């Protein structure tokens, strides 16, 4: 196909696409017409790609999450506040005590590497092909994500085929993933506590920043280097 042929095709296609309904435009050749009609048919018949199972529940759960209230702005100091200072101090102490009591529990990410059925010890060097295993207990909705080299989202639970079924442990849900490390690099799990419908910036740092801006708590696990 010469550049001239291609220009002729483009000119004809443009004439056809701009033609009024039913208007006929002569093709450079019958073969040209047949080929482009076949191409249009193939584009139209690209197979359907069904939406992933469970996504709608995650989306609707995210709608139910309360929007975090903006932090209250500090009020300007007033003269009367000096009179009420002791009272305010007592209230503050009471408030701090209450907040301490209600402080959400920390979430720990348990990470290990398995070579076959054997758990690698801390001194051993993980190899490509080993299983990266991460496990976390969450009090409510949330996500367990695995990143490679802190820049590439590698897998996400729930949703990825390497995720284990969610298990109820006490008053929490255990999310876990066992995924092979398919190439050299650093693998790291993070946990997002809260259903926030988090998007993707493409980097671990960006996703963590987004999650925090939306009011979610984020916990970052240790990095595993596969060589």
């Amino acid at each position, binding site marked *: *196909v010469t550049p001239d042929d*291609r220009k002729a*095709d*483009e*000119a004809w*296609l*443009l004439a*056809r*696409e*701009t*033609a009024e*309904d*039913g208007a*006929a*435009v*002569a*093709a*450079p*050749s*019958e073969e040209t*017409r047949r*080929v*482009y*009609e*076949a*191409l*249009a*048919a*193939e*584009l*139209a*018949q*690209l*197979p*359907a*790609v*069904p*939406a*992933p199972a469970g*996504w*709608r529940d*995650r*989306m*609707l759960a*995210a709608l139910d999450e309360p929007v975090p209230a903006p932090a209250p702005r500090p009020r300007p100091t007033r003269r009367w506040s000096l009179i009420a200072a002791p009272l305010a101090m007592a209230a503050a102490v009471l408030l701090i005590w209450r907040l301490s009591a209600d402080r959400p529990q920390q979430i720990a990410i348990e990470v290990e590497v398995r070579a076959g059925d054997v758990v690698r010890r801390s001194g051993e060097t993980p190899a490509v092909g080993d299983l990266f295993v991460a496990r976390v207990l969450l009090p409510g909705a949330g996500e367990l994500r695995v990143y490679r080299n802190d*820049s*590439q*989202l590698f*897998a996400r639970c729930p949703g*990825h*085929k390497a995720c284990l079924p969610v298990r109820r442990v006490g008053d929490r849900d255990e999310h876990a993933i066992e995924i092979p490390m*398919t190439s050299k690099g650093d693998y790291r799990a993070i946990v997002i506590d809260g259903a926030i*419908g*988090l*998007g*993707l*910036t*493409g*980097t671990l740092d*960006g996703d963590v920043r987004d999650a925090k801006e939306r009011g979610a708590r984020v916990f970052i696990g240790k990095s595993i280097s596969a060589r």
Partner: protein
Amino acid sequence: VAPSDPIVPPPSRAPDPSLSRGDPPDGDPERPALDALARGDRKLAVALLAGLYEDVVYAYCHRMLRDPLRAEDVLQQVFLQAHRDLGDFAGRGSLRGWLLGITNNRCLDAIKASKRLARRMEDDVSAVENAVDESPDPLERVDQGRRVRALEGCLDELSPEVRMTVLLRFQLGLSYAEIGAILDARAGTLQQRVARALPALKACLERKGVAL
């Protein structure tokens, strides 16, 4: 050579989901969602819209981004934004067109974000494996799978704006007026994109050894 009619996208093999879920008596599949919206129940409206268009939006995102995880994220963002902005839907055009407008913007955002990465995420062939394939003949299915992968690879070589135009025109069968409303572009610009994209796709398929 005999004159020929404009290339009109033939009906897609996959039926329009909006027509396959039990349309209400008045024939407008969006009516229940619009009614829910009129009652102020945006969550129900979004759930109904998701039932109608989740596959359309996801398939479109998947072909734009070529990554199932990112496509699912954009799918979720689209409907969360729809929930937030449904009150602004003025009723001009269809909810499907309005959703596709959001979808385009979110896909473009995701593409821009991905360009910041030094390297792209791994191709996930599971999308092609998960694709609905209705061909009964195994040999034909293998050949069709190769053709689909080749065509999707060639689509990926187009710029995002051109790829969007081609998919909206041929995959979803929209008119240039509808595409123009979604992409905020003139019909003439879109027609030029299509006229240039088809020879590029043809040449790409030929390079990959796929005969049309």
